């Protein structure tokens, strides 16, 4: 099953490589991994999307907690949470496609952020599955390029991950 794991870690050189190294050394899956500093410059917040049986996820959480640089770990799937991911898609926009691309983008609440002679660049945010659905709605031949940030996650309501 897919899990979104959030963690806070010391904003030290090499901290990211310890997490990435742990996943590869122990054969855990990483679907996506995002990391950036928080409002407290000494801390980085990381969101890891992974998958595995309950036992594997339990081991992942324990092994992450064991890393000396990791301050806190939270499995967002343990409660209600929100997941958001940003995607930029460059699509062909010539002739009839110009209108059609605009229309599909609107349906998915996307924004066209760059307009060129033969292409549009569409910005889209949402859950991973929404972004997947958008790509599926497009004819593969019109997609020139895609870039996704990977998911960021946060707990709903009072569920707060903070030091």
């Amino acid at each position, binding site marked *: 099953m897919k899990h979104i794991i959030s963690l806070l*870690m*010391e904003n030290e*050189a*090499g901290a990211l*490589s*310890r997490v990435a*190294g742990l996943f590869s*050394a122990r054969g855990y899956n990483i679907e996506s991994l995002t990391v950036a500093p928080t409002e407290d410059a000494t801390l980085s917040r990381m969101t890891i999307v992974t998958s595995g049986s309950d*036992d594997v996820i*339990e*081991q992942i959480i*324990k*092994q992450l*907690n*064991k890393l*000396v*640089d*990791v*301050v806190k770990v939270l499995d967002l799937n343990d409660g209600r949470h929100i997941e958001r991911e940003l995607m930029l898609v460059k699509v062909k926009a010539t002739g009839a496609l110009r209108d059609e691309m605009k229309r599909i983008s609107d349906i998915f609440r996307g924004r066209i952020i760059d307009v060129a002679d033969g292409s549009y660049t569409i910005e889209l945010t949402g859950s991973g599955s929404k972004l997947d659905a958008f790509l599926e709605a497009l004819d593969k031949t019109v997609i020139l390029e895609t870039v996704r940030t990977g998911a960021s996650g946060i707990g709903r309501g009072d569920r707060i991950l903070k*030091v």
Partner: protein
Amino acid sequence: MDQSNQQKVGQISGAEIIMRCLHEEKVKFVFGYPGGAVLHIYDALFKQKDFKHILVRHEQAAVHAADAFSRATGEVGVALVTSGPGATNAVTGIATAYMDSIPMVVISGQVPTAAIGMDAFQEVDMVGVTRPCVKHNFLIKDVRDIAMTMKKAFYIAASGRPGPVVVDIPKDITAEFAEYNYPKSVEMRSYTPVIKGHSGQIKKAVKILLDAKRPMIYSGGGLVLGDASNELVKLARTLGYPVTNTLMGLGGYPATDKQNLGMLGMHGTYEANNAMQECDVLLAVGARFDDRVIGNPEHFLSVPRTIIHIDVDPSSISKRVKVDVPIVGHVQSVLSEMNELLASESKKPDASALKSWWARIDDWRTKKSLSYDDSSTSIIKPQYVIEKLWEVTKGDAYVTSDVGQHQMWAAQYYKFDKPRRWINSGGLGTMGVGLPYAMGCQLADPKAQVACVTGEGSIQMNIQELSTCKQFHLPIKVILLNNRYLGMVRQWQEFFYENRYSESYMDSLPDFVKLAESYGHVGMDIEKPADVEGALKEAFAMKDRFVFMNFLTDQKENVFPMIPNGKGLSEMILGSDPNKDDAANEIEG
């Protein structure tokens, strides 16, 4: 940085700061080897008298010796190596210590800060290389960070589940100047090891233990590292329950005690493995249910039982085997609390159930699974050498081993009554540790008898340390069980590869006696069973000499009992089984 290049009043160099830190940590020995990137450090080392530097002949041996010093004493072992090849040579030693959770600080030199990443001479990314095999590592980038980093390194190495910590220090940092303040204590928000176990869980565990009909206590290296032998002995004697130790846990519970069933696992005793499989309540203490211990986890779990697991590392719990009562905490603290609860408890163990359980165990014991054919008067049996070693040293020696058949025989036939006396590479299984391990033990306890049980394959992996032993007058006794084969490899090839002995024969061996003598040591060849005991007595009587004993042993002897890879605890092949070789052959490796 330019400010740091000029020494101001009250400032000392980075290299001197490192010396002060080691002094503060009461380090007695630093095992190391100099080189370009650590020249400033070695210059500072030259001027100090707080600790002794042990110059090895290869960096791997420095780390192994520091590791053994820690295993023997419980203190943090310290090694010092230069950058690049010095650092990579240390990696096997670091990984060995990591797998067995040994507290160590390894200081490695690094090329100057400005040269990092430039593919400089003797540059290697030590923090990157060691990341998967350390508890933590640091690259120091500012001379003012040295003291705090060293403090953290020692704290992290020794606390929680112990492990090696690497501190990588660029050469320029060791030459710069800063004020020295060693922190009294250290607090890290990201690292807060648990000591006290959950009292509710401990109460629950005690209740389950008292309700057991077929109880079993299984203790591992964590018990030894946590110095909780006395607490376990008290608990086991109060309850009257059987105990087994893992390879790493030998000596944690006295081997000669009648409640001890011997070692369990792939080469464990018949009684220990069967009791482990058949018990209804299992108390696991500082052990991790690894593949060499329980064999196939599905086979192990095919019998229902309640498992209580005490471990300082939460990630060791429910990793291979799901447990019912996890207790995260320091083994000494948790066992003490259990003992207190038992003392105030009116309920006693079920005597009649226990009696019939012990009757079953005694029945398993009649198999005498460690018996071997000792009738030959011409060929030395390796097991016999270990039995005599135990007698001659009165069971009180530090015994180090390398890896292979000799390691298993030493573990099976030397009865360890004390913890921290059996020093071997259990997790990584590193050939070549034996001799440097013996060096670490002898330095830790100069008057003690130290025996290095080894094979002719393993000993040659760090044979250069004969020179270090000469320099520091280490009166180690090498017990070489020389069967002219990589015995364990040969055993598996015999059982699982139809006797195709691919590259497992040790040809062109040196004359070990002459080799030892060339270093100024004493060498002995022992070829007949009748000479074994006399030779051992003679060797151990030479209290101030290093003696290299080359025992020519039976080439065909195998280690039994044996659980073939992937099989379960009750699927052992015994040495007494007349069809043992066929039985092994039938089983796929």
